[in-house]
């Protein structure tokens, strides 16, 4: 119950910031992808299961605010959360930059995957140059924002389970 409340609060806050604050704070005209950031950080902190779950719920919520067929973001973020959660178990780097790097790579891969699925079902027609720009800038922006959001998200992730917290 507590877990569901925390998750919904985190996802709602991310969507809210994404639609009200960050359209004013763009990086060269590109908004960040906060739900990708949330998914990657949760997956890195709590493993593939939690990552996939957060990705699915957050992705579905974001899908309802999009004009593309619902479910594409849910699919993208489920796979992203699971993959990052799995990969995290094999990374032993103590670097404090690790979350930022994971967010950057995860966001780039996720945005490209999302557009790829959209293209396959005939929904997206953004030119390649613009797509490349969005992939690059959302990754960079995600990495910049990670140090700001990471402490908050770690506390939220800790609150989803009363037990121990995985730290790195």
């Amino acid at each position, binding site marked *: 119950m507590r877990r569901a409340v925390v998750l919904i609060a985190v996802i*709602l806050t991310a*969507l*809210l910031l*994404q*639609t*009200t*604050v960050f*359209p*004013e704070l763009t990086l060269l*005209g*590109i*908004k960040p*992808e906060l739900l990708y950031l949330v998914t990657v950080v949760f997956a890195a902190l709590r*493993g*593939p*299961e939690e990552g*996939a*779950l957060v990705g*699915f719920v957050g*992705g*579905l*919520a*974001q*899908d*309802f*605010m*999009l*004009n*593309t*067929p*619902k*479910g*594409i973001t*849910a*699919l993208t973020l*489920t*796979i992203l959360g*699971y993959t990052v959660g799995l990969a995290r178990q094999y990374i032993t780097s103590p670097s404090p930059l690790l979350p930022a790097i994971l967010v950057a790579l995860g966001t780039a891969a996720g*945005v490209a995957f999302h*557009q790829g*699925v*959209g293209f396959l*079902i005939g929904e*997206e*027609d*953004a030119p390649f140059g*613009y797509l490349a720009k*969005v992939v690059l800038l*959302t990754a960079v922006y995600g990495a910049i924002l990670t140090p700001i959001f990471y402490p908050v998200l770690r506390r939220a992730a800790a609150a989803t389970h009363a037990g121990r917290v995985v730290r790195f």
Partner: protein
Amino acid sequence: MAIRQRARSTRVLVVILVAVSLAIITVDYRSGDAGPLAAAGRAVNSAIAPLQRAVSSVVQPIGDFFSSLARLPSLAERNRALQTEVDDLKTVRQANQELARRIDSLEQLLGLETITVRSIPARVIASGVSNFEWSVTIDRGSDDGILVNMPVVTGASDGPRLVGRVLRVTPISSTVQLLIDRDFAVPGRLSTSKEMGLVEGRGEDDLRMDLLSPGVEVSETQPESVFTVGYRVNGQRGLYPPGLLIGTVSRAFSEPDSVESYVTVRPAVDFSTLEYVLVLARGRSDEEVAP
């Protein structure tokens, strides 16, 4: 052993979530705007709308403050320039009112049908969530009489500039697809040559007006405006009333041996500073009755 068990249950969960996502994509792709998914979408959007309204009412003044701080030195001069322009426009407006009265009486004389437009003012409370879609959320919804596909404009009611169309409604908020969205298209007419074409959104780039005949004349000296066209196919009216300003032509492309030429159009609305809009509600019932 326990770890392996856990890994397997995680895999099962992921497979289920992926399958559900794929099912949702398929169902939504087939059913479109009807069905349980649309209802869930309305629920999510109406849950977040009050929060968006609250946050944007806090964030916007802060943003305005900082941007006005940066522009402070040029403000006085700009104010003077605007004041003279306002005086000029007041004169023009008086003349226009006289003309409007004459047109009204002539239309009545000829028995022409006039379209009455009711407009619903709304405030922009949020932008779109994605970098690939250009939309805004406004704080009026189906409870205020807004329906999907209604045109959205900004500016004075006697010189409206096209913003976009209503894409989705919830009882308390609506999503407006902006003119620059890649899925947006509206029939337009060049102001001097009266040539008609289809204006399409191109995202960050200028709009593109297609389907013009090859030898179309676009004046290079004075800016040429593009307005919406009212049309009627099989007794059904187009979505947009005629005479909404779309933008001005920024470049003309015409190759001598092509079948059609196109121009690019810079939108008349600055979407980054959009704060208030009008939703144009035409009497739907009238439309059905009209021949």
